[in-house]
C-alpha cells in the first residue's frame, strides 16, 4: 500500500470511529451492580444503590465531605426517591469507575457567557459544545469534589439511580404478590398493597437484582417530601463528640509519624544535610529525602514514634538549602511584571460586544482604574497530611483529598506500581477550599512509607509548612476603562487583566496525560470579568496569562474571588460617575437579566437599603454570578478606632432548585467569613523565594468577635440546581469596599482593605 493511501485509510477509519462514537448515546451513569463493594447480605441494584437485608439503603459515595454538606444532600436525593427515612441511608466509598466522574465541573470550564443560557433555549453553539464536552468527560470519568458542582452534577444521575432501584423493587414485589406495580405504595421503606401484602426492601432485593426497568423518571416536584426541606446533617453528631475521623486521626497498628521540612525557597532543593543531631533524639528512626512531587517543593522528612518527636527531629537536621535554578521569586517584582504585561500585551479576548473603540472616541467623560489582588493561602484548619503503607508491592493510602484518582495516580507513580495496586481511603476533610485538589503531600507520604519497611506512616505538615508551601491564589491586576456620554450614561466598558492561569499548571502536575503542549485560554483567569450581566452597549474583556513561577492553585471561588472585587467595585465607581445610587444604577443595566435584578432587589429589600442606619454606619452592595448561582450581598460597615467592622451581611441567592436550605444558609455564612478574612487580612508576600507569612499570627483569620451577623434569603426556583459552596465568597469584598467608600470617600482598589 502506498503511504498516501494508507494515510487516507487510517484517517477514514479514525473519522468513522469518531463519527460512530459521536452518534452513540452518551455513556450512562447508572453503572452495574458489580461496581459496589461486595458486602455480605447486601444486594446491589446498580452502581450507586445497594439494599441491605434489613431494608436499609447503601449509597456509593464518590464525593468528599469537607464541610459543604454533600454527604447529607446526596443521601437526601436517595432517601427521597426510595421513600426511606434519612437514617436508613448509609454511605460506602465509591470505586474508581467513570460513572462517578464529575461531568458538571469540567463542563463549567467552557467560557460561555452565562446570560446566553438564561432563556428557555440555549444557543446551538453552547448545546453543541456541552454535548461534545459532556461525552468526552463522561468517558474520562474524573472524580473530583470542587467547583461547587456536586449537586449540579449528581442531581439527575443519582435520583435516576435511586428511582430505578425503587422501580425494580416494586416490580419484584408486584410479581411476587401478583398485583400491578402501580398499586403498591411505599412508606418509610415498606412496600404495601391494599390486599394487605407488605414487605420492606430487604425482602425483595434478591428478586429485584438484575432487573433494570426502562423509562423510569425521578419523582415530580409536587411529590417531594425531603428535597427543599431543612434537614439535619448526618455528619454532625460524630463531629460534636470528637469521633469523626479526619486524615490526621487515622490510627493503625505500628503507625509511625513523619514530619516535613521543605526548602523555604519555593521550588528549591538542598545540597547536603547532617542528620546526626536529629537521629540522636528519642524515638527518631530515620530522616528521609523528599523529592518535589505534584508541583511542590523538595525537602526532607523525619520519622518518629510521635508527631512531636518527628517535628523536633526535622528541625534538628542541619541543611544546606539550594535556591531554585529559575531564580528566587519575589512578589514586588512579579507585581511590576504584571503591570508591564498589562500595558504591553494584548492578551486573549474572552468577550466583545458593540464597538468599544467608537464609544471611547465619542466619550464625554472617561474613568480609569487599576485594581489588584494579592497571593492568598488556603489555610485549611487541618494541615496537609496523608497516611501511607507500602507493602508487598501494594500501596494503601488514607487521605483527606478532593481528587482520589489523582491521589491514586500519584501514589502509583512514586511507588512504581500500577494504579490497580493502590487502594485509596478518603477520610473526612478538615477543610478543602481547593487546596486538596493537589496531591503533593500524597507523593511525600508514599516516598516516606517506602523507607518504612512495610510499616504504615502518617505524614503531616506543621502550620508553618502549610502556609509557606501552598498553591496560592494568584496575584492579579486589572485595568478598567469606562466611557460615559454627555448625559452620564455608560457607553462602553473595557477590562483587561493579567495574572497566572491556574488550570494548565494544575493539569500538568496532577494529570500530565491531559496537559497539552501549549496553554489554552483558561476561563478561571477571566471569570467574574468577561461574564458580567450588565447590558452596556460596548464591552471588551481580555486577559494576559502570565507564568510567574509561583505555585498557583484553585482557591475557593477561584477567579471570581478577586475579579468580583474588581468589577463590583468599579460598578460603584461608574455609578458615582453617572451620579446614581449603586442599586438604581445596577438595576438600570439589568433589564435583560431579570433573574439577577430579582436577587439584587431581594437583598436590598431585606437589608433596608437606603434606610437610616446607626451613626457611623454605611451599607455597600455587590451582585455576582458564579458556579451557576447568583448572589447579592449588602454589608453594613463602620470604622472603629481605625479598624473595619462589618456588622451585618444580608445575602440573597438564586441557586436553582434547593436540596437542603439549611446547608445553603450554612454556606452563605461560611463564605462571608471566608471572604471577610481575605478582604481584611489576606496577603501572602514572597521575598527571596520565601513566603513571609507562616502561621495564624502573621496570616490572620476573622474571629468570632469580628464576625458579622449573616442573613440568608433564597429565591424560590425550579431550575437545575447550581453551586452553593463558593458563590457567596466573591461579592463580600466589594460589598465591604463599597460601604467603606461611603464612609471614607476613599476608593479601595487593592486587597486587603486598609483604612
Amino acid at each position, binding site marked *: 500500500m502506498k503511504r498516501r493511501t494508507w494515510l487516507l485509510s487510517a484517517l477514514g477509519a479514525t473519522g468513522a470511529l469518531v463519527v460512530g462514537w459521536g452518534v452513540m448515546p452518551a455513556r450512562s451513569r447508572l453503572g452495574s451492580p458489580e461496581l459496589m463493594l461486595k458486602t455480605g447480605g447486601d444486594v446491589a441494584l446498580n452502581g450507586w444503590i445497594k439494599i441491605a437485608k434489613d431494608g436499609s439503603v447503601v449509597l456509593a459515595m464518590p464525593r468528599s465531605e469537607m*464541610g459543604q454538606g454533600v454527604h447529607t444532600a446526596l443521601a437526601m436525593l436517595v432517601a427521597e426517591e426510595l421513600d426511606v427515612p434519612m437514617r436508613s441511608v448509609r454511605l460506602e466509598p465509591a470505586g474508581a469507575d467513570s460513572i462517578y466522574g464529575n461531568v458538571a465541573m469540567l463542563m463549567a470550564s467552557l467560557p460561555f457567557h452565562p446570560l446566553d443560557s438564561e432563556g428557555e433555549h440555549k444557543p446551538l453553539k453552547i448545546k453543541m459544545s456541552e454535548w461534545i464536552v459532556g461525552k468526552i468527560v463522561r468517558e474520562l470519568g474524573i472524580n473530583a469534589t470542587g467547583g461547587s458542582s456536586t449537586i449540579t452534577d449528581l442531581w439527575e444521575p443519582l435520583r435516576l439511580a435511586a428511582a430505578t432501584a425503587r422501580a425494580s423493587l416494586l416490580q419484584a414485589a408486584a410479581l411476587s404478590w401478583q398485583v400491578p406495580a402501580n398499586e403498591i405504595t411505599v412508606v418509610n421503606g415498606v412496600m404495601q398493597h391494599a390486599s394487605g401484602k407488605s414487605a420492606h426492601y430487604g425482602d425483595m432485593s434478591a428478586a429485584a437484582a438484575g432487573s433494570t426497568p426502562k423509562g423510569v423518571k425521578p419523582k415530580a416536584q409536587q411529590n417531594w417530601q425531603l428535597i427543599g426541606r431543612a434537614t439535619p*446533617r448526618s455528619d*454532625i453528631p460524630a463531629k460534636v463528640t470528637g469521633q469523626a475521623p479526619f486524615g490526621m486521626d487515622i490510627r493503625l497498628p505500628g503507625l509511625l509519624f513523619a514530619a516535613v521540612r521543605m526548602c523555604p525557597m519555593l521550588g528549591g532543593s538542598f545540597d547536603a544535610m547532617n542528620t546526626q543531631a536529629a537521629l540522636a533524639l528519642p524515638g527518631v528512626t530515620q530522616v528521609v529525602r523528599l523529592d518535589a512531587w505534584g508541583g511542590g517543593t523538595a525537602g526532607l522528612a523525619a520519622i518518629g514514634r510521635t508527631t*512531636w518527636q518527628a517535628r523536633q527531629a526535622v528541625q534538628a537536621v542541619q541543611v544546606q538549602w539550594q535556591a531554585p535554578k529559575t531564580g528566587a521569586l519575589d512578589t514586588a517584582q512579579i507585581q511590576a511584571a504584571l503591570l508591564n504585561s498589562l500595558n504591553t500585551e494584548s492578551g486573549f479576548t474572552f468577550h466583545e460586544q458593540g464597538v468599544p473603540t467608537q464609544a471611547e472616541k465619542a466619550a464625554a467623560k472617561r474613568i480609569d482604574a487599576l485594581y489588584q489582588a494579592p497571593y492568598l493561602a488556603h489555610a*485549611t*484548619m487541618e494541615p496537609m497530611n496523608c497516611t501511607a503503607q507500602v507493602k508487598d508491592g501494594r500501596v494503601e493510602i488514607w487521605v483527606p483529598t478532593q481528587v482520589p484518582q489523582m491521589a491514586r495516580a500519584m501514589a502509583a507513580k512514586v511507588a512504581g506500581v500500577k494504579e490497580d495496586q493502590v487502594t485509596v481511603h478518603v477520610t473526612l476533610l478538615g477543610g478543602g*477550599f481547593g487546596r486538596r485538589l493537589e496531591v503533593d503531600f500524597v507523593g511525600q507520604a508514599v516516598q516516606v512509607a517506602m523507607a518504612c519497611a512495610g510499616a504504615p506512616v502518617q505524614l503531616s505538615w506543621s502550620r508553618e509548612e502549610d502556609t509557606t508551601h501552598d498553591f496560592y491564589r494568584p496575584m492579579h491586576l486589572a485595568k478598567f476603562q469606562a466611557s460615559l456620554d454627555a448625559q452620564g450614561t455608560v457607553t462602553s466598558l473595557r477590562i483587561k487583566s493579567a495574572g497566572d492561569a491556574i488550570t494548565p499548571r494544575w493539569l500538568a502536575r496532577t494529570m500530565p496525560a491531559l496537559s497539552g503542549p501549549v496553554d489554552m485560554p483558561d476561563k478561571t483567569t477571566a471569570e467574574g470579568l468577561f461574564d458580567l450581566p450588565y447590558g452596556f452597549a460596548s464591552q471588551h474583556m481580555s486577559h494576559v496569562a502570565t507564568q510567574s513561577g509561583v505555585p498557583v492553585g484553585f482557591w475557593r471561588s477561584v477567579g471570581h474571588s478577586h475579579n468580583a472585587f474588581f468589577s463590583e467595585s468599579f460598578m460603584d465607581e461608574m455609578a458615582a460617575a453617572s451620579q446614581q445610587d449603586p442599586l438604581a444604577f445596577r438595576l438600570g443595566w439589568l433589564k435583560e437579566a431579570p433573574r439577577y435584578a430579582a436577587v439584587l432587589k431581594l437583598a436590598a429589600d431585606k437589608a433596608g437599603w437606603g434606610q437610616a442606619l446607626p451613626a457611623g454606619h454605611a451599607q455597600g452592595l455587590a451582585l455576582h454570578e458564579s458556579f451557576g448561582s447568583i448572589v447579592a450581598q449588602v454589608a453594613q460597615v463602620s470604622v472603629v478606632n481605625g479598624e473595619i467592622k462589618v456588622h451585618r451581611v444580608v445575602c440573597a441567592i438564586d441557586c436553582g432548585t434547593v436540596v437542603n436550605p439549611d446547608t445553603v444558609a450554612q454556606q452563605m*455564612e461560611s463564605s462571608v*467569613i471566608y471572604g471577610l478574612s481575605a478582604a481584611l487580612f489576606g496577603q501572602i508576600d514572597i521575598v527571596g523565594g520565601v513566603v513571609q507569612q507562616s502561621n495564624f499570627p502573621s496570616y490572620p483569620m476573622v474571629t*468570632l468577635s469580628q464576625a458579622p451577623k449573616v442573613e440568608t434569603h433564597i429565591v424560590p426556583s425550579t431550575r437545575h440546581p447550581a453551586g452553593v459552596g463558593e458563590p457567596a465568597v466573591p461579592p463580600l469584598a466589594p460589598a465591604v469596599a463599597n460601604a467603606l467608600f461611603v464612609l471614607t470617600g476613599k476608593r479601595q482598589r487593592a486587597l486587603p482593605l486598609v483604612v
Partner: protein
Amino acid sequence: MQLNINGQNRTSTAAPDTPLLWVLRDELNLTGTKFGCGVAACGACTVHVNGQAVRSCVMPISAVAQQKVQTIESLGTPEQLHPLQAAWIAEQVPQCGYCQSGMLMAAAALLDKTPHPSDADIDAAMTNLCRCGTYQRVRAAIHRAANTNTNTNTNTNNKPSLTAQKGGAA
C-alpha cells in the same frame, strides 16, 4: 509520667517537655483533640485542665502531671450528649468539623464559669478559629445550651455542672 486523663490514670513515656496534645493524640489515641497551629493561636487543641480551657499544643505534660485533664471524649457520648453538644446539633453548627472539639471545650469552660454568658462574654471567651465560619451558630448554640441549663435548673432545683464528669470520677 503519670497523667490523669478523663478520670483515668495514664502513663506516658514521652519526654516531660512534650506538649500534651501529642501525648493525647499519638500515644493515647485520643484523636478528638486536634492540631491546628502549634502556637496556641487557633484553639483546635483546647482541653480542660482542672476545669480551665487550655491550649494543649503548648502545654508540656510536666505541667499537667497530677492535674485533671478532660478532653472532648469525656464531654458527652452520642447516647448521653452534653447540653452544648445537643445545642450544637440543634443549631447545626459544624461544617468541616475540624475545629469543633476545641470550640466545644472552650464553650464548656465558659459555661462552667458563666452559666448565662452575654454576647460580650462569648466574644471574650471564644477566640478559637474556624475556617468554615461557624461563628454565629456557635454563639447561638452557647445561648441555647445556657437556656437548657436554666430549664434543668428550674426543674431539678440543682446546680448542674456542665462539664461532664467534672468532680466525678475525675
